[in-house]
């Protein structure tokens, strides 16, 4: 074997994302400006909603200068809880620093998006980011920051402190970046509109570079139920996670270890599991050999008697909020929504919510209209690869009195601690049988409701027509038979018309 001389170079997470920015959605100026807005808006929503604050989000996109149209200043302001001053540089300018490393549903997972936006802005414009934040009086902090890409460290260029006399709390991020707004505009507006559908409790304002104002106003003052942090479910575990838990655990026995660190594992379940896995109950988790850890993880995946994960860690919209969002943004004539019971795939709990909107301002298109959401984020790219698209195309809509070409739209929202993405691009949901079954049943449920509405409407229309036929022809029959019979008086048909109405009611 020939020895090869190689230079190994450790790269920082910031460097890694710099080199692989397309996976975070920053592949080109069109996609980048879309992703920048999306990431900052989602950060803002995550800074408000979980704290019980009704979000007010203001987005302004303007040209950096008059000369070059391809450079923009993006400013996003929220009324969130704000970031403690000392954490601001790390929160925005260090990769994999995040408040989101716990197991509950949230929009982002690793706090990657916000930092990625800043990184992208920096590498395209060589300008710093400005972050202004306050957790409330007495002070407001303003940072001017850059990222040391190779070392994955924030560089603080400037730090100012202001008095907070207006009791403001929240965060403002102002980033410079290269982009192509004219081309990205349709998707950005679609994204904001769909965000408004699943966040009807938010005020979202967008001012674009040409000064056009788009307002998405709050119509419900109620927030979705907040997720509770939970332990990982044994079905969804991997070797690395088990090692991390072993490192921090204080448990002396596997029996305690199982109960203490895993979701919905009680004493009896732990005992039965350890017997199934072939480990003594009093084995010390810290003394497990590497191959034993692997065997333990395999056994966790194969043991069928764990209770399914519960959905406390999820924050579905709820039927009322989903309905309100659909009514507000799509303005349909009819809407039906359903929330499926919690379910799980591979130990990850999820809930599917489905809506259907018909008529009103829903456009008539040649194809079906589908709106997809994951953890309250609209998915506006790569529709045709999504499991929901496959499902709505496979449904025989005629069974519900519907057909493509009628004005209706289907909305599918899946929320989970771990969305089953199809690709790293995070725009498509994968076709997991547990998930697709819930989506299909949800769509069937709302389609049935719409079908019932349409047939009722049809019946009411028919009834109206029916009565108008009686009202039109009975008088004619009375008139002409009276004339034929040579009678002056035309028979009174009022009673017959009343009875015609009753025939149908019977």
């Amino acid at each position, binding site marked *: 074997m020939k020895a090869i001389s190689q230079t190994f170079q450790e790269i920082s997470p910031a460097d890694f994302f710099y080199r692989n920015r397309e996976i975070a959605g920053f592949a080109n100026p069109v996609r980048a400006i879309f992703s920048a807005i999306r990431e900052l808006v989602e950060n803002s929503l995550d800074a408000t909603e979980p704290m019980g604050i009704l979000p007010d989000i203001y987005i302004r996109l303007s040209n950096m200068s008059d000369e070059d149209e391809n450079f923009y200043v993006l400013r996003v302001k929220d009324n969130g809880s704000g970031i403690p001053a000392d954490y601001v540089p790390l929160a925005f300018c260090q990769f994999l620093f995040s408040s989101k490393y716990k197991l509950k549903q949230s929009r982002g997972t690793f706090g990657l998006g916000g930092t990625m936006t800043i990184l992208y802005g920096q590498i395209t414009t060589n300008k710093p980011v400005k972050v202004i934040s306050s957790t409330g009086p007495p002070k407001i902090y303003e940072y001017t920051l850059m990222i040391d890409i190779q070392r994955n460290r924030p560089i603080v260029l400037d730090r100012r402190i202001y008095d907070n006399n207006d009791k403001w709390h929240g965060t403002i991020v102002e980033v410079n970046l290269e982009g192509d707004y004219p081309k990205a505009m349709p998707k950005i507006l679609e994204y904001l509109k769909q965000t408004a559908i699943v966040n009807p409790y938010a005020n979202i304002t967008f001012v674009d570079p040409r000064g056009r104002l788009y307002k998405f106003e709050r119509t419900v003052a109620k927030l979705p139920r907040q997720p509770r942090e939970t332990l990982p479910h044994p079905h969804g575990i991997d070797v690395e996670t088990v090692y991390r838990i072993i490192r921090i655990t204080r448990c002396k026995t596997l029996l305690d270890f199982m109960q203490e660190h895993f979701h919905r594992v009680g004493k009896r379940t732990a005992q039965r599991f350890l017997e199934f896995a072939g480990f003594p109950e009093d084995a010390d988790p810290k003394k497990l050999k590497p191959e034993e850890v692997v065997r333990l993880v395999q056994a966790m995946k194969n043991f069928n008697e764990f209770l399914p994960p519960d959905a406390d860690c999820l924050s579905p919209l709820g039927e009322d909020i989903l309905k309100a969002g659909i009514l507000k943004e799509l303005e349909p004539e009819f809407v039906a929504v359903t929330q499926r019971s919690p379910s799980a795939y591979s130990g990850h709990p999820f809930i599917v919510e489905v809506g259907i909107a018909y008529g009103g301002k829903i456009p008539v298109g040649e194809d079906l209209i589908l709106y997809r959401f994951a953890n309250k984020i609209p998915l506006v790219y790569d529709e045709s690869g999504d499991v929901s698209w496959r499902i709505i195309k496979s449904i025989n809509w005629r069974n519900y009195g519907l057909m493509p070409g009628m004005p209706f739209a289907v909305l599918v929202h899946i929320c989970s601690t771990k969305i089953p993405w199809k690709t790293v691009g995070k725009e498509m949901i994968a076709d997991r049988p547990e998930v697709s079954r819930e989506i299909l049943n949800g769509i069937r449920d709302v389609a049935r409701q719409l079908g019932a509405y349409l047939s009722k409407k049809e019946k009411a229309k028919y009834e109206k027509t029916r009565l108008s036929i*009686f009202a039109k022809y*009975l008088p004619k029959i009375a008139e*002409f*038979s009276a004339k034929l019979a*040579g009678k002056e008086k035309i028979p009174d048909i009022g009673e017959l018309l009343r009875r015609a109405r009753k025939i149908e009611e019977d």
Partner: protein
Amino acid sequence: MKKISFSTREKRREVLARLERFGLDLYEQLEKGIFPNITMPSRSIDNIYYSPELRQYVLGDKKIKRSASNIRHLRPFAQLVWMAFFTHELTQNQKTSTLRDVFYSAQAYDISFKDQDESDDIITDLETILGCTREDFNVFPEESSAVFGDLTIEYTIPNYEGKRLNLTSHPDGVMIGPALTSAEFIETSADKVIAIEKGGLFTRFIEERVHERFNAILVFLRGQAPRSTRYFIRRLNQELGLPVYIFTDADPWGMHIAMVIISGSANAAHIRELTTPDAKWAGVWASDIINYKLPSDKLEDIDVKRLHELMRDPRYKDELWQREINVFMRIQRKCELEAFSRYGLTHIVDKYLPQRLKDLED
């Protein structure tokens, strides 16, 4: 010269009375506060039978009921009552109307027909209910045929009432329209009726003075005879007692023109007074093609198919028809009335006609 009793005025009074009874029946149902209904014989195929006694198609016992409480019946119900009202007006005022006219007239009363077929259908309903023809209540089709011969008639229509006309007055014949249909027959010297399918021969017969030479009233059928013409022929036969001879092309279609005059059509099974059962198909027969060596054409597939249908038709069971159908099948030839011209323009009148009439009278 025969003197004939008046008939059309009585007929009119009867029709008016039937229409009024129809209206009164509905009126009384309405007065009782019930949804009125009408019962009439069904005209569907499964209720049409051939009656050997009457020698025509008749309706069976199946009835259909139209009720004003049924949403699907309401529109035709109202159309029917209007139709009765409208034709009563026509008949009472001695005005006539074509089928097309009726269709348009409805609009003035806010009664709509989606097309003329629909209004024609309602007229047929009214015929079925009243048991008389639309000509009786003064509704006529557009097409008309003609008559020529020594028959004096007296008009009963307004402005012409009492005026008389001899049907030899016009060398083209007199159109069998509403006025003639409702005219009374006054007197005639004729002792037979000769009905002819085609206009060319009708004119030839007049030119050759067939009406004088054979003491005949000539009727031009213009192909398949309209109902007013069939009714007129029946009157000539029934009221004047004249035998009727029909001349058509020698093919299945010509045979059927004669047959509809004799035994009527399935479409008119609800009407009794359109047929002339004693009328005779006088030619041109298939056997004439052989016997008179007439120029002929080969039967087409569609002719053969039609012959097969006629062979099974109950109206064609008599010996003459069966014999001629068989001859057609055997020789696979057909010919037109004009084929006699091969032997000169007057041959048919000089030779064929006298012989045939003599044969049939015997």
